[in-house]
């Protein structure tokens, strides 16, 4: 590990994989993808970084603790449906807003997307939490 080629490649691959993971997340409702696989893809970007460099630098790159990611993700998923509490529908009934861009091109945005973002964050957080702490484990005395 720590080869120069891998390091250099990671510099370019990392943003690409991250963008790809967000692409997977967003398109998931219509095409193969979604929060779960998106979160895994994002996690693999960070793991690539960890393989090329090391755990501390990956943690710096993440900027937040993975446990925080898990918590925020769970709260996002849970909170995505607070609207339903206001209008008395069953929890997790979806709410959608359609934005018309051109006459036959419009964008639907709804609470399931927020839910999916929560899933994405939890999966990312859990994967990184486990993998990074196991990799860190052997480094300790």
């Amino acid at each position, binding site marked *: 590990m720590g080869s120069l080629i891998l390091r250099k490649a990671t510099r370019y691959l990392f943003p690409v994989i991250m963008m790809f993971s967000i692409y*997977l997340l967003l398109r*998931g*409702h*219509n*095409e*193969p*993808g*979604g*929060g*779960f*696989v998106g979160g*895994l*893809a994002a*996690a*693999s970007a960070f*793991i690539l970084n960890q*393989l090329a460099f090391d755990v501390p630098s990956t943690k710096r790159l993440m900027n937040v603790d*993975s*446990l925080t990611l*898990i*918590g925020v*993700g*769970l709260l996002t*998923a*849970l909170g995505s*449906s607070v609207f339903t509490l206001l209008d008395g529908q069953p*929890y*997790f009934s*979806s709410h*959608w807003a359609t934005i018309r861009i051109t006459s036959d091109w419009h964008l*639907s945005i*709804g609470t*399931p*997307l927020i*839910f*999916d973002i*929560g*899933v994405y964050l*939890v*999966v990312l*957080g*859990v*994967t990184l*939490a*486990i*993998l990074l*702490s*196991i*990799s*860190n*484990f*052997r480094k*300790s*005395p």
Partner: protein
Amino acid sequence: MLYAVMSGFVAAALLPLLHRFLGERSSLIAALVPLALTVWFATCFSRVASGEVLVSQSSWLPEIHLELGFRLDGLSLLFALLISAIGALVIPYTSAYLHGNPRQHQFVSATLMFMASMLGVVLSDNLVLLFIFWELTSFTSYLLIGFDHEKEESRKAALQALLVTGLGGLFLLAGLLLLGTAAGSFSLSEILRADGALAGHADYTLFLGLILVGAFSKSAQTPFHFWLPNAMQAPTPASAYLHSSTMVKAGVYLLARLNPVLGGTEAWIGWLTAVGVLTLLTGALMASAQVYLKRLLAYTTVAALGFMVMLLGIGSARAVQAAVVFLMAHACYKASLFLVAGIITHETGEADVRRLGGLLRFMPVAGACSVVAAVSMAGLPLSFGFVAKELVYASVLDRLLVFIPAVAASLLFVLVAFQVGIKPFLPGSSDSSGTPHEAPPAMLAGPVILGLACLAGGFFPQAFAGALAASAAAAIQGGPVSELDLQAWHGITPESVASALTLMLGIAAVFATGHWVRIGSAMKPLADFGPDRVYLAELKGLNLLAVWQTRVLQSGSLRRYVAIIVLAMVGLFVLSVLRSGELPILNRNTPLTLPSLILGLLIMLGAIGSMIATSRISAVAALGVVGFCVSLIYVLHGAPDLAMTQLVVEALGAVLLVSAFLNLPSFHDRKRWVGRFRDAVVAILGGLAMTLMTLMANDVQLAPSIAHYFAETSVLLGHGRNIVNVILVDFRALDTLGEITVLAIAGASAVALLKLRMAGKRRS
């Protein structure tokens, strides 16, 4: 009424905030809540006394028969008044008793919570709701007993009370559920309307037994009585409020409440009378050996509760009236004596009655209150206690087996009343350091008002308590309000002769106090064999069981865990096949395509490769082949989402395994033949079961497929063309939430475990 119950909880929640701004004065403001409740309940009195039942209903969880239904009849009103009135006296008392304690507001807050729960118990119209409040009283009682949580005895006593009443609570829950099912309704009003019909029900003995265990454990009946004296570790205001006048009477309340539907049968009369008498005697015997103020009072409370249960068991109109009046009188004098005992200990730092005396000149007001309450407890004429005792005697005179224990307990009441209420104030001297002072007004208010109540009930019983007692007794009997004529003095009757006899014997016993204590201490070793011992043994046994099962099941070896899981799965599979009788005939004729055939062969090769691999890395690589081929199968069958996820998981899994390997022992350790053989058996069994299950799952269709529904509505309702994802995040979002929660917990635990190991490594 919902607001009446909830106000206590709201106030309890707001109190810490108030405390921040106002400090200890917040406790006095908190006392306004019970005061307002007392006034409110008092205004309901005239309507209830005329036989009306006030009801308020609002829906909460109708699916499980849970409604926020409250009803107020004579019995509920009696308890509600006691609870709120004594609460209004105890909270100001607390503010002085815990003066300077930084956690005072927590105590008051818990007291308010308790008050609200207790009101909930006596006002609930729904059995499930009643149970919820019932458990809440156990819980708040735990908080209050364990208030001095830095003392080990407090923690132990709190836990004991919680476990004993909590265990009883489980019995009660089962009993109430059975009762509700048998009656066809969980509403008390409706059950009470059915009156009498339940006594002939097939399950009657079962739910009666369960409910009785619940009620007896709460009301400290033998053999559950032991938690109550131990609960005296609680600060005195809690003892006065919970453990003498209100919470311990919850069981009595429940028995009284259910008397119209469950009472009157042989089992009811037999059990209640027997347990009541037994409790009476136990309380009396144990009290004779005590020398500490609060424990003395606690054992007499046990005896008094036995009294009430016994009277309810007898169940005649007169006995029920006696139980109600005795309950009122007991609440007044016992709370008062507890509060004075708290003052004495607070001022002198002494709780041993043998070393107390001569306090009257230091604290005349407290002394006067104490003497009045003691007179009432002893049952001297012109006290509330006397009126109650006359009624009790009148209802048991014709039953010798009950009458003698009743006299014995009354005798003990005389003795304890003297020791606790009078002796500390007689001339003599206390072994206290410093000069005791009169207590502050906030502490005296309670004893004074309760003392006045004892006197009022003694001089003008009919005006003071007649109507309330009559309507409560009517509610217990389930009939119309009957006449109840309470008189301060009936003239010379058999009851008053018995009373006089008791008093004389009691006074004689007072003079022989020394002997009593000696006899009592001689019997102390007997107490060691009591239920307290059983309780300890059970706790110990439970711990041993936990240790044993942890050692067996949680061996810490991953290999064993996997084996247990796989074998359990195989076992369940075999069991279900045996139960259904036969293996479904596997006659599906699915055409095998060339790509699947190739992939299947590759998967088998990969699996074999991972078994015969000589290093871990090659085993992982072989497993990778399996994983990638599986994802290709997903692609072949049109599941790109699954395939994609599987691919990424494979990649990350490889990284995970490789990182983990660096911490594992050498691969060759596990090459012994016996172990390999065992592993092979487990693996083959697991694989076989899984294969058969998969094949069978293909054939079984329990419910009509909903695939079409999803396909049709995915775009319409879910705004998405990817059905898998629409199901995940919209149609079945709750399932997904559950899954990511499990994931989050697993992730957090993995991190915690690794951190623990690392910390351990560093230490060693």
